[in-house]
């Protein structure tokens, strides 16, 4: 009987080893371990054994049963794994097909530039001030030392609504309003971004509506070298540490002395090219020391206070920084243009 059990074990293990599918394993289980299986048959013949032999054979039969059961389980796990593997293989997909597109929005290029400049000056302690786009002649011109019939009013032919109301031609009226609001009583620094309007025909370089950012600092003992230092810091952060700046004398009715700021041309590194018209320099902003009349009209005593102001055009900066060559592109809102320039 002992031999019989050993034979059963060997046979069963061999069959399990050879089994290739779950069904065969099931058959093996029934054939050896089932109620009518080989082991049961052997056990049925135990009656003929001596009482001493019975427990020995019983124990052996159990052992054989356990070994076969274990082998079946092991094989079964192995077959399951193989089956799963085969199934996963059939589930392969084409990873080169496109994903489900997420709708992506983003800011307009001008907004990106305006916010970049805002953040840069906020970092230097400036507040952001805004004001109306329809202005009075007083705030747009007179408070800025541009009385009626001043020849410099020609520089900015304006969209008037009435004799006293017009679309602001620069954001400087916000400066006048801020000074008035602070009533000559405290130093301050501010920048004012916004839309401005000029009586121009739209073409590649002119737009009847455009954007401007102006800055104003009023305090005691403000020096022209402070303006130079501030603009240098701005230009290097905005255009790169390797840019050089150059200030030239200029003329604005609301500043004296006045300056025009150039930065060294990035395209040719100052050698001269078509972008900088051969000069190696690109005009980027205008500014100067606040004219004493402007301070006075704003309620600040020019004997105690001085200040500096500057202004620039985000469109121009965008055109230089990103090579946009038609100012109208900012206002036609071609989706291909907007997508190209946003960094979402």
């Amino acid at each position: 009987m002992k031999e019989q059990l050993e034979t059963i074990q060997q046979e069963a293990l061999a069959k399990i080893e050879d089994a290739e599918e779950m069904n065969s394993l099931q058959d093996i289980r029934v054939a050896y371990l089932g109620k009518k299986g080989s082991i049961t048959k052997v056990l049925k013949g135990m009656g003929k054994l001596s009482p001493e032999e019975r427990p020995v054979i019983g124990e052996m039969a159990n052992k054989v049963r356990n070994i076969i059961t274990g082998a079946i389980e092991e094989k079964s796990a192995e077959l399951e794994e193989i089956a799963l593997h085969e199934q996963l293989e059939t589930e392969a997909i084409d990873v080169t097909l496109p994903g489900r597109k997420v709708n992506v929005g983003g800011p307009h290029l001008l907004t990106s530039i305006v916010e970049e400049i805002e953040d840069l000056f906020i970092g230097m302690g400036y507040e952001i001030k805004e004001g109306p786009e329809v202005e009075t002649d007083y705030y747009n011109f007179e408070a800025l030392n541009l009385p009626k019939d001043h020849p410099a009013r020609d520089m900015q032919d304006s969209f008037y609504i009435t004799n006293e109301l017009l679309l602001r031609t620069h954001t400087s009226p916000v400066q006048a309003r801020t000074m008035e609001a602070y009533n000559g009583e405290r130093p301050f620094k501010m920048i004012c971004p916004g839309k401005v309007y000029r009586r121009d025909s739209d073409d590649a370089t002119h737009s009847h509506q455009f954007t401007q950012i102006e800055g104003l600092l009023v305090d005691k003992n403000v020096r022209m070298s402070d303006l130079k230092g501030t603009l240098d810091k701005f230009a290097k952060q905005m255009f790169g540490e390797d840019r050089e700046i150059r200030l030239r004398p200029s003329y604005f009715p609301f500043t004296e002395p006045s300056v025009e700021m150039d930065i060294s041309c990035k395209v040719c590194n100052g050698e001269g090219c078509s972008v900088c018209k051969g000069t190696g320099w690109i005009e980027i902003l205008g500014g100067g020391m606040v004219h004493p009349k402007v301070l006075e009209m704003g309620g600040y005593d020019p004997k105690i206070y001085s200040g500096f102001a500057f202004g620039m055009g985000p469109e121009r900066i965008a055109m230089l920084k990103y090579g946009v060559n038609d100012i109208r592109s900012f206002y036609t809102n071609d989706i291909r243009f907007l997508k190209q320039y946003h960094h979402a």
Partner: protein
Amino acid sequence: MYVSYNWLNNYVDLGDISPEELAERITKSGIEVEGIEYVGEKVNDVVVGQVLTCEQHPNADKLNLCQVDVGTETLQIICGAPNVAAGQKVVVAKPGAVLPGNFKIKKVKLRGVESNGMICSLQELGVKEKFIPQEFVDGIYVFQNDAEIGKNVTDLLNLNDAVFELDILANRADALSMIGMANEVAAILDEQVTYPDETIESNESERAEDYVSVEVAAQDLNKYYGAFIIKDVVIKPSPLWMQNALLAAGIRPINNVVDITNYVLLEYGQPLHAFDYDRFASNKVLIRRADEGEEIITLDGQTRKLTPENLVITNGMEPTALAGVMGGLDSEVTEETSTILLEAAYFDGTTVRRTVKQTGLRSESSTRFEKGVDPNRVRKAGERACHLFEKYANGNVLQGLSEYDGLDYAEKTVVIETGHVNERLGSAIKDEEIASILRRLQFEFEQDGSTFTIQVPTRRQDITIFEDMLEEVARIYGYDNLPYTLPEGDGQVGGLNREQQLRRNIKSFLEGVGLMENRTYSLTDEHNSERLCSPEIMAKSPVPVALARPMSEEHKYLRLSLLPGLLQSLTYNQARNQANIAYYEIGSIFVSTEEKITKQPEETLRAAGALTGNWVDHPWQGEVKPVDFYVVKGIVEGLFDQLKLSVQFEQTKLQDMHPGRTALIKRNDQVIGFLGQLHPLLAKRLDLKETYVFDINLDAVFADYENEPSFAEIPKYPAIARDIAFILDQDVLAGNIQARIAEIGAPLVKSVAIFDVYEGEHLEAGKKSIAYHLIYQDPEKTLKDEEVEASYQEIVKTIADEFNGYVRS
């Protein structure tokens, strides 16, 4: 203004400084040189020759065989120019000469006949057309008779000149002249200025006063008027050097008289006008305001109707010139003119400016009067012209002049102090440096230690206060030489204010859900001025604000809605096959309720969006869904959720919107915007497919927004979910039921969501089923089933009573 390097060199010794270097230094001192243009280039072996004989080439119809005297020899030259003739003095390129473009002149045979050189046009010498006198644009150049045979043409024709194009800003009227630029350049280079010759040689016994008297009736507009008389004038071409100077400055030579007045205008910055004395037809000059409706025929042949705003020169009866702007046709100098009445005057800039605006006649003269001329140079300019009339027009200048003089010749005094200068500039300039700068500027001054009392010359009308002089010192000292410092003030903390921060948050939200920001114009046309204006704005009966003088009909009115602009963007993209677009813009609208506007319109900030095409676009998965009402509503709801502001939506009908798919956005019973589908008819007109829009009043949002939302604890006790589906009449609004459930269920019902809407099979006609998902929760304790059941039953009963709805089993 154009400034010729060679001409400038007459007044200031430019030494060997190159035009490029000079341009750079002028620019850095405050007058921007926008460009440099060369007239031509220096040429060798190109000389003045005289055509002795000119016959037809024996073998060619269109060629001429010329014998040309070039001083050292006579050359046989074949010339094809139609205007060549015997006796002419012409430009001859001798064999060996190299013309621009590396064109080498050699002895050649043309149709069997020898040709030893070339008779040149100015183009062949590399001269740009703008520098060529009109009559020589299409042929060879012909000198005046006095040209010296054999002489190199480089200097004669000013070929080696460089012309600067200057951008002279409104304050520097003094630089609108060669002498002014000479002063400027002398200050920059630390050189001396040589002034022009103004001496009048004539010893005529007759006096100008015998010929003409001057009366100024409008003395406020005309502070000086001087009249010179020049007799026996011979009209002929002006000398070549003068023509060259004018051409370089961009003015075409005409004849000696006109050229001399133009030359002095450019030299002194003082406009002059020459009348034909005989045609002036009077011995009295009367300067007055024009009468209303009075007329004058100006030099260009146009009849101009005048008003008392215009200042006119009259002969005592009728206008003979528009003061400072343009002369009259009737008194113009002609070939027959022999006596000249020369005007040197000082006219009011504002009056000239108004007349220019009214007539559109802007000229070299008017520009200078507008910006202001130098009182001390008015009469001198007249004298300079007389000097030139004597030399180049055979003129006899009568003694003296008739004049009215009410000019203020006083020089302003400005005091500066070295310490103050350095305080304002942040510099460390020394007393002697300031003294040197003032000397270079040719300003007279007295120095007392560090204090300078400066007499500002009348040519610098722009300098009146300390700051003006500060700029003068700084620019000659060099802006480059100022240090870099940062303001020392006590550090203000910068930042965005609440609204600015909120605006950025709203932008981020809208961009995050897939909208792209737009920038559109604030100005629109009449059709769009009120279109799609939000109902709460329309309720104020706004009057669109119009420009007084628009550039075009397209941009005439200030917008009352951002939507027309956004729709225009959509159309633009659609026309370029960009079909799926989701745009938004944040910007102001302009609300005025005055029929005739007197005060600034109210500027209200709005956020608007326009969407068209597919919102879900995954074509290969078969998931393509166009944008619909609920996409846009979802965006708006999401925005208000993020802002933690509750809003309600209410069905409405609006002009240009789909009558069944439009909703008002309301908060606390106030309309704060709307959303919905654009009316299909309007969409069709705009070439748009189904399009949805929203428009929100951000000022209303800002007013209500809580800066710091209160903190609510996360509930500790479990929630219980219940679903209810009601069968309802089809016209019952899902949102109303939802709101009512929330109301009845409060405070235990935490949220009510709709999870199914069904109509059709298995339902009675005219009915629909809506299923709600309710969450019950008590923050204080664990809810009991009985509490939930009681609330549930109350809801079922109320919906049955109020909406005739019953629970679907």
